[in-house]
């Protein structure tokens, strides 16, 4: 079980969090033209890296904040955690 440092609450066990996928995906802006290809990429295409991955987690059983976690998908090492509005 991972030990994730919530930037708001501190170190907490994984079972307080839920996983939210790739944190680098940006939603196309509202009311702007998006090509089929770009829209499909946004909705469906995700990388599955072996190694460092910036991902979203939500501290659902804690502060309910969405946070960013930089984690190694192979070793589970967590390098950094960030608030939703912070960048690496």
């Amino acid at each position, binding site marked *: *079980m*991972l*030990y994730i440092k919530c930037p708001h609450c501190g170190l907490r*066990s994984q079972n307080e969090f839920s996983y939210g996928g790739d944190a680098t995906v940006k939603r*196309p802006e509202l009311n702007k033209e*998006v090509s089929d290809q770009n*829209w499909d990429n946004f*909705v469906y295409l995700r990388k599955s890296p072996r190694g460092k991955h910036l991902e979203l987690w939500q501290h659902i059983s804690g502060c*309910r904040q969405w946070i960013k976690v930089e984690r190694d998908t192979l070793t589970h090492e967590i390098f950094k955690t960030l608030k939703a509005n912070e960048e690496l």
Partner: protein
Amino acid sequence: MSENYRLEKGGLINRNKKIKFKFNGKKYFGYEGDTLASALLANGVHLVGRSFKYHRPRGFFGAGVDEPYAIVQMNRNNEVDPNVRATEQELFEGLEAKSVNCWPNVNFDIGAINNFLNKFFPAGFYYKTFMWPKSFWYKIYEPIIRKAAGFGAASIKHDKERYEHKYEYCDLLIAGTGPSGLASAYAAAQNGARVILAEDKSRIGGSLLVNEVTIGNQSGQEWAEKIISELKSMPNVIIKNRSQVFGYYDHNMLVMSERVSDHLPKTDKYTPKQRLWYIRAKEVIISSGSIERPLVFGNNDTPGVMLSSAAKEYLKVYGVLVGKKPIIFTNNDSGYETAIEFKKNGIDPLILDSRKNPDSEIIKEAKDLEISIKFSYVVVAANGYKKVNSANIAKISDDKKIISNIESIKCDCICVSGFWTPTIHLASQSGNKTKFNEEIDAFVPSKSKQKETTLGSANGVFTLEETLKTSFEKGSELSKQITNKENKVSIPTVVEKKSSKHDKFWCVPLPEGKNYKRFLDFQNDVSVSDIQLALREGYRSIEHVKRYTTLGMATDQGKTSNLNGLQLVSEVENKVVPQVGHTTFRPPYTPVAIGAIVGREVGKHSKPTRKSPMHYWHEKNNAVFVDAGVWLRPRYYKQGNENLFEASKREAKNVRQNVGVCDVTTLGKIDIKGPDAAEFLNRVYTNAWLKLPVGKARYGVMLREDGIVMDDGTTTRISENHYHMTTTTAQAANVLSHLEYYLQLVWPELNVNVVSSTEQWAGAAIAGPKSRDVLQRLFPDLDVSKEGLPFMGYMEGNLFGVNAKIFRISFSGELAYEVNVESDNGNFMWEKIMEIGKEFNIQPYGTEALSTLRIEMGHVAGSELDGRTIPYDNSLEGLVSKKKDFIGKRSLSKKAFIEPDRQKVVGVVPLDKKTSIPEGSYIVKDAKAKLPNPKLGHVSASCWSVEYDNPFSLAIIKDGKNMIGQKLFAMSPLKNKTIPVEIVSSHYVDPKGERVRS
């Protein structure tokens, strides 16, 4: 029966307390402090089971977790406990156990015929033999193999025992209470660290309990007792015996199973049988010790052949002789310690040492005691079937290849010592890349990945002096880093006997013309020839060899066999052991009861149960409940002998004719506030929200980004910047996360806050033509007329002194209102509604009637919004704004979503107006078409229409728009039903929606 093999005195057992027990139906006795194994050995019982494949007789091989043989089936407290190691099971009054893997009994086992057919059971036997004919596998081969193999039988009854979970955090977790564990715990505790010290056995002290050493001016055992009593008095130390740390997981999370009650005749009412500890440790010290390695020779699995360290433990801890005419077969000095113990207790052992001319303090001591020793001697084979009765011994050449001078010597046990294997399981599980230590011919931990340190013999250090020194130092150093405190402890002086070097020899060659089975893996009957065969057949990777031959598998996971297996592979392959590598060590280190893993999360406790504030009223009024997500909701209220069908029909009918009241507390509620709330809702929902006036509710549908409907519900504008959103019961949590996602990550510029208020409000839906009359009586001061409170209107009122929110919304399709009050007042509200509604024939209705009412109205719900449908499919396209953008809009223009024959929800009525259509039925054109019959869609929800008194269903079918009026078939292969049906509009009742607006 008397105990013929118990010494007059000695051991750590309580001789004042005799304990009676039964094994295979026969009565014996032992003493408090015995294990089942030691008590049986005291009674001279060596035959305890049959082996996995050949059904060869099995005795005891070890004295602890490494035991590959003595696996028994326990009957404790009227519960069956399979797969129990007799070497770990402590004796209690009335214990009952029996042998496994034998039929009809352990003495006469039919399966032993396999032993004589062993030529036909080589490695990979199953893969080679049962391949054809293919159809035989399920019906013939598998059932027979299943019956013949396996250790014990699990009960198919519900396990009545209680198991629990515990979460703990500490600075240092120390696994193992031998010298390294005690020393490091002591040093760490002195520095103020929070320490958990775990021991698998019931007695703390590890090797100090059996080794003749002096620490300071005390014996090892006395020193251990002193340390333990000091540690026990410290508030920062938790000591747990009978507790196995079996798994090392990510981020220094370790799991330990504590056998709380397994040593007692029955579990106390308020204690669990076992407890699983999830421990998050800042640092871990692995002081798990080492396990003696067997030597390999002919018939080395015969009962009476056992580890020399086990024989010593039975002597020193339990005062039990494993034999009275022992042969000690060793390649190192450890065997001498066992021999000396035998000698001290009046037994004359014979030592066979594979080494040519070793010399050390302990060998000298043995010589001084006049113990017979033969150097350059080996056991070639053990003789005897159910118990060893003699050994063929021989001289071995210096290169260990040629044996000569074979003679037979009488004996009743053979104690083997092939040196020591560090227990590196936890270190390896943590990600530590182990390395091979040539000095000790074994793997030891090297570079840590997590915060762990291995000490003592687990790290390949076999002298007490060095172990204590490094353990005190490490315990102090690691804890100091955490607590920033340092209380120096002085390292005591140690007196121990110096050992000479062990011999790398481990496997006795076969004598000419003999074809003895020489076992490597004792639990799985894997012999030297099996591994040789696998290698001849081309298996190279040690992982493949393991799986093909089953070397190192099953409950003991090769604790005694792995290294010898590796040595053999390396010999045959002409590689060095580190090139061969070892198989992956995976948790659990020892078997863990499924019950312990599940803990308290069984049955009703597998998830929390939520009850509405009116729950007890429902209970008192004969409600039959149903699980709705995590909620318990009344399904129907039983009157007299009514069944579900009759009651729900009555309830639904009463709503259509008079008035009903339904507990809708479970609906998800989200409070939304902020100046940008309207804009936010406008982006979340498919329809327009900017112009919703204060005091009005609106129905809305929200999508996922892929265009699929996520949820629906009504949202009410309470005030300018304050909205009250409702969600379906099931999706409440997901919708909240969804909203938070967009507010926190996608549109952080929106000034909006959301919070769940589901539990703050109790809700009652009052529905039916007479609902306005009831409402008027509830709120006499309010104008609740058609004009005063129109459809989708909202007002606040005072319900006999209680603040209430009134929404004119309807799920039933009737004139209806939802009244919300603060949860604490829920029951008060409900009772008032029932009291006032009495004269209008009000009746409570449950979820079954609720479903009936919505289905015949054609209102879509969870069964249609099933994560596969878009708004169009649910006839909700009218709610999809063309003007504004919203979540998921871009996906709705996908080709598949705009196909002209896109699926759509329709109504389905059986032609005979009698036969109910099972939910999940397929809709097909031709009931007799060849399989697979092309499917047009499926029936999503069924009810008995109370309006028309015939069955009615909703279905989602292809080109539904153009199917109205068609005669088709509903097929349910599950229920074996084919029903001719007609497709009708999904709005079966009141298609214009006049009633809700009345």
